[in-house]
């Protein structure tokens, strides 16, 4: 510590929100709260420069239409639109490695709904940079980089946190946007429920010879699902799952051998492929905080719910938390309520708890149903896919659901 033995430095300024975690959800919430006239202090262990590294590193997000609306509401979409690839169609098929997959097993086309593309593929570097720059430009947001929270105290009157510099920061509401191993949740005594799938996602970006035409593919293969998601130009993002041990073995291979394993999984419809960017692995596990709120504290994003990324719903669910919390806070401020009171936080928890639990359960079920070579289960899912394809209303429902346009939408997603 910088000032051993000295009394903590007390800061007189009080922030409305103290947000722990300066990744994507934290800055998005700070920007949304600023629109309601509230000030935020955003704390992150990493320096800004490290967070907004501008090189393409292979990471990208399948942004649902509702999430795009939130970014538009924060005045960020205009600068992001050129870097985003619209997803016009999603084709879902069932297959076996090395065999031609049963394409057109299930097809969703955004031409069937009037709201526009069902989503966009957006590279992490662009989204992160847009959020961090907007945060730096806002006079209602203070960014505290390269520091960690070592203690937090929440009480009926307010929140105070102690940083590893010895500094004490005071505020009215504490936000945990610090990921699946949220220290904010742990320090508040919030336990987590979760399990591992015994699977690991392998993620990379590829450059390919033929155009993707804005079509996303979801292939259900016995080892686990594989998604091909269109990026701008002749590039796509690949997310595929294998058992933990196999995934580690594949990840350890040189690029050339890695591609040799990847190629037969989706055939040659994109022509020749090469790696574009780094390769990543993410162990697949589900972790849900037993409570999304506590006294003067709310959790958003993975701190509240880390889920299977099978449907690309991790970031979308986080941004939905942000929009819902910003919504209840905004309405509370306009009514003169104490926005950090249990009355207000309960509205957020009630709103998001059900959505999250049902999404986590359905992605979990979906994965169990499709990551399987059991003939009976294959039969069931073939019938299911056929039914959905035969019923336009049902299919439109799925498209709206995937686009994040169902349920009770927060103001910023309307």
């Amino acid at each position, binding site marked *: 510590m910088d000032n051993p033995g000295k009394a903590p430095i007390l800061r007189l300024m009080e922030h409305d929100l103290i947000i722990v975690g300066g990744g994507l959800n934290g800055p998005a919430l700070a920007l949304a709260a600023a629109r*309601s*006239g509230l000030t935020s202090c955003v704390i992150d262990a990493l320096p800004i420069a490290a967070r907004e590294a501008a090189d393409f590193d292979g990471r990208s997000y399948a942004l649902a239409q509702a999430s795009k609306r939130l970014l538009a509401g924060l005045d960020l979409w205009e600068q992001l639109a050129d870097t985003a690839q619209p997803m016009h169609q999603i084709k879902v098929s069932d297959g076996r490695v090395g065999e031609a997959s049963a394409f057109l097993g299930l097809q969703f086309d955004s031409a069937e709904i009037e709201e526009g593309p069902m989503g966009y593929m957006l590279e992490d570097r662009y989204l992160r940079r847009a959020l961090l720059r907007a945060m730096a430009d806002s006079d209602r947001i203070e960014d505290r980089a390269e520091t960690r929270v070592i203690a937090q105290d929440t009480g*009926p*009157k307010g929140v105070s946190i102690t940083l590893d510099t010895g500094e004490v920061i005071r505020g009215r509401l504490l936000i945990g946007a610090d990921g699946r191993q949220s220290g904010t949740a742990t320090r508040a005594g919030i336990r987590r429920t979760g399990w591992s799938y015994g699977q690991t996602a392998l993620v990379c970006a590829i450059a390919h010879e033929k155009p993707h035409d804005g079509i996303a593919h979801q292939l259900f293969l016995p080892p686990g699902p594989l998604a091909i998601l269109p990026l701008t130009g002749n590039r796509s993002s690949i997310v595929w799952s294998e058992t933990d041990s196999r995934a580690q073995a594949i990840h350890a291979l040189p690029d050339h051998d890695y591609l040799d394993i990847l190629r037969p999984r989706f055939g040659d419809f994109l022509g020749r492929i090469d790696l574009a960017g780094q390769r990543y692995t993410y162990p697949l596990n589900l972790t849900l905080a037993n409570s999304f709120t506590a006294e003067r504290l709310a959790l958003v994003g993975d701190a509240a719910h880390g889920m299977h990324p099978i449907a690309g719903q991790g970031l979308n669910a986080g941004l939905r938390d942000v929009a819902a919390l910003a919504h209840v806070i*905004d*309405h509370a*401020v*306009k*009514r*003169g*309520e*104490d926005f950090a*009171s*249990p*009355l207000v936080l*309960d509205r957020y928890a009630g709103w998001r708890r059900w959505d999250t639990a049902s999404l986590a359960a359905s992605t979990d079920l979906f994965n169990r149903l499709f990551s399987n070579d059991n003939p009976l289960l294959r039969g069931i899912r073939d019938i299911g896919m056929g039914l959905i394809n035969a019923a336009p209303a049902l299919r439109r429902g799925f498209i709206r659901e995937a686009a994040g346009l169902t349920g009770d939408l927060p103001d910023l997603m309307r």
Partner: protein
Amino acid sequence: MGNDMTTTVDASEIAKFEAMAAEWWDPTGKFKPLHMMNPVRLDYITTQIAGEFDRQLGTDQPFKGLRILDIGCGGGLLCEPMARLGAEIVGVDAAARNIPVAETHAAQSGLQIDYRHTTAEAMAADGEQFDVVLNMEVVEHVADPLAYLNACRQLLKPGGLHLCSTINRNPKSFAMAIVGAEYVMRWLPKGTHEWSKFITPDELYDLMRKAGLDPVDRKGYVFNPITWKWSISDRDLSVNYVTAALKPA
């Protein structure tokens, strides 16, 4: 008055007031039905005040400069939001025990609120005047509604706004507000309401006109038992409803 009380109460009394304040403000406690309804009440109140006095909600302290009276203030569920929005607020309650409880919570919230143990009639006799009178869920409890509404009119400055909510009188309101809220859900103590004292919207408009107020708006508060939420309705005034009236300038 408030000062006399705080100087004469001892520490155990303060602890008791704190406990009672915590009870008033517990969203899942004894006053849960009031807390569930409070957002729609506040939405109506803030929108009407903003419209009448040309204020912009969402700006800093939009009600600055407005003097507001809340009759039957209880634990301060309406006074605190009004104070936060910048109003100069006076909260009165006929139940003496509510005053130190509300004062304790306001102090915890860091808000300046003038709470008094008195009645509308006594304040009117003292010649006090306000820009807005909040008269929420009181008129169905008073012995002489016309005399009471007359006092409310006297408490308004010319052009002032009177917001008054109560419960309609019909079989549905009997089923919902008495059988449902008092006996089935036990949200309210049995005997809280006397159905015969409930007033229909037309009767209330009539009473307000007789008291010299010009009614300008009425809306229903509707409880949805599926979503477990209250909302404001233009048409359904069958159980809980709210009215806005002006004192002629």
